[in-house]
């Protein structure tokens, strides 16, 4: 009996010690140890994160995860994807189920603070809009008084929608459905008059899911700012730096004119900025805890920001708009890699 008491107390102490130790390990070390990045993505939003007909995940959010894997492991294939709905995404990240959440998530102060998350940057500047069937004859969002609006729960969309209608002294009836497929079914079945989400989502949905895309019109009003970007947990500075600079490497590469096709020629460039980027001189990679070829790997194997955009979003009818580089009048600006 004494024996079992002693054994039990040793077991309890060991359990406490193990869990303390496990909690203290940083995400960067954990990812390196397990050999792949666990990436939280959308259940299926064309252009951002969606499996294609062969089950391969594609999209600009997916490309960010692949860039992180290319930077850490040299192989963009070392990613596993967890599809998450808008209600599951934050608890999945907070609990450690995913290492990074790359799921067209809007950067807001509440999410940055009271949710215990850190946004690493913006990979798509967007705004919220409305899509209505052309038959309704509605030309502006201000004509939507009394309409039934389909929306997904737990999103900034839901809050902005309520704010907009309140500010314009209009009323509406919400139909709130969690799964993207189900809420789109409700919209296309005319259960509601309007569907609202980020304009990027509206364009993608009209192009990929509408039975007849010409029958739907996106209203001109953009009612909010929605800077979309990948997210990591608080208290994980090293991992935060790695993910942040993976995204900025893609944007900087486009600014420097480096693409996956021509970067091999630039390996022997005499331009010091490019030399630093590809790791020929300097120790930037080591400072991040990565190989010095981290940025070269990203551009060679995943591409720069423009290539990712053209591959995923341009075929759906998106134009760069405010997502152009700052040198061309847009908002994409990467801090210098030096």
């Amino acid at each position, binding site marked *: 009996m004494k024996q079992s008491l002693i054994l039990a107390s040793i077991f309890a102490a060991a359990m406490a010690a193990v869990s303390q130790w496990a*909690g203290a390990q940083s995400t960067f070390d954990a990812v390196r140890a397990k050999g792949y990045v666990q990436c939280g993505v959308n259940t299926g939003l064309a252009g951002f994160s969606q499996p294609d007909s062969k089950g391969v995940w594609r999209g600009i959010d997916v490309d960010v995860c692949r860039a992180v894997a290319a930077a850490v492991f040299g192989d963009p294939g070392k990613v596993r994807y967890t599809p998450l709905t808008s209600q599951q995404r934050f608890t999945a990240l907070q609990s450690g189920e995913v290492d990074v959440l790359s799921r067209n998530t809007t950067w807001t102060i*509440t999410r940055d603070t009271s949710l215990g998350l850190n946004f690493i940057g913006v990979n798509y500047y967007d705004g919220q809009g409305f899509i209505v069937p052309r038959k309704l004859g509605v030309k502006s969002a201000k004509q939507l008084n009394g309409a039934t609006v389909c929306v997904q729960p*737990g999103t900034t969309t*839901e809050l902005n929608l309520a704010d907009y209608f309140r500010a314009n002294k209009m009323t509406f009836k919400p139909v709130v*459905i969690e799964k993207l497929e189900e*809420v789109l079914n409700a919209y296309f079945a*005319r259960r509601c008059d309007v569907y609202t989400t980020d304009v990027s989502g509206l364009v993608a949905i009209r192009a990929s899911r509408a039975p007849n895309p010409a029958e739907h019109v996106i209203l001109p009003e953009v009612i909010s700012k929605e800077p979309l970007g990948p997210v990591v947990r608080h208290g994980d500075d090293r991992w935060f730096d790695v993910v942040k600079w993976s995204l900025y490497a893609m944007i900087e590469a486009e600014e420097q004119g480096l693409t996956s096709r021509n970067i091999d020629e630039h390996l022997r460039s005499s331009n010091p900025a490019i030399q630093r980027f590809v790791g020929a001189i300097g120790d930037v990679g080591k400072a991040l805890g990565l190989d010095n070829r981290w940025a070269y790997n990203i551009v060679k194997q995943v591409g720069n920001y423009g290539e990712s955009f053209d591959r995923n979003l341009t075929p759906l009818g998106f134009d760069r708009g405010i997502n152009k580089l700052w040198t061309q009048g847009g908002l994409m600006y990467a801090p210098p890699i030096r």
Partner: protein
Amino acid sequence: MKLSFNDPRFRSLVYQAAAIVSALAFGAYLVSNTLANLEERRIASGFAFLAREAGFAIGETTLIAYSAADSYLRALTVGLANTLRVSLIGIFAATVLGTLIGLARLSHNWLLARLAAAYVEFIRNVPLLVQLFLWYVLITENLPGSRGALEPLPGWYLSNRGIHFPVPEPHPAYAWMLGAFVAGTVAAIGCAWCGRRRQARTGRRPPVLEIALACVLVPPALAYFAGGAPTALSVPQLTGFNFTGGMTLTPEFAALGAGLVIYTAAFIAEIVRAGVLAIPYGQFEAAFALGLRRPLAMRLVVLPQALRVIVPPLTNQYLNLTKNSSLAVAIGYPDIVSIANTAMNQTGQSIEGIAIIMAVYLTISLSISAFMNWYNARIALRGG
């Protein structure tokens, strides 16, 4: 009791004390570890978020006025009201439907019995979530939009936004009517009790049914006329996108209600059938010997006895129905789980949100089972 490990009572006390202390210590460790982790990751904790503005709108509010400017606490209360509404109506309807189907399966009419059996076997074995999606799709895809709504009766509109029907405009006479109805019901119950006592004493039963009906129907009618006989109706009208006025039964509520009731009725049918089959056939034979036909024998002799077997598993089914209503989030009905999920997402406080959901369901379920246990004790066999 000697203070030595050789004494069995002392040993058992020591073991129990050790078990309690280690359970408490484990619980304290879990709580403190969780709080420390939340603090380290700077995730907000505490229930202060309940007073903050919710910021989101809710599609269906049962009797509670709510707008996006109200607090999270009010939003959760609306969710609770929605859950209670669908649960209570569902429990009532499922019991009625389940009893009818259970008795149908016992019927000597071959077609009726087979149909009831097919219903039970099919409905029981398909997952509830699938059935809810099916109902929702049937309702939203097969009914026309609000601009082409069907009008089966004047003022009643059927569209995929719901069933819209006229209701009387609010008027003080209706409050009087409600009060008169409640008073009349109490009088009717008292009358039935008096009638039973009179029958036990003298063997003659006064016309209880007629008097009770009069008590229940006449006072509200008098109150209606005394209040001014208002006839104003609020009729639904198509204005712009939707119908305003009247009352609306939304497709979400209809789909959830239909799905839950039909699913749970299949289980209740089997429980009722089991209860009736548990009564020895001798009871039926005795009733037939008294000259009662089968339906009367069932109602007066067998079912009251079968209730003792039926009520405990029936409690289970009521609790199942209440908890299954949380599937509402899949089809867009704003019940407590759906709204608490939204609150968890907007504030990041998952632990408090889950605690609220658990507390709500625990309270509802304990209330239902407390009531059913009281009823069970009331109908139990007394004595040996």
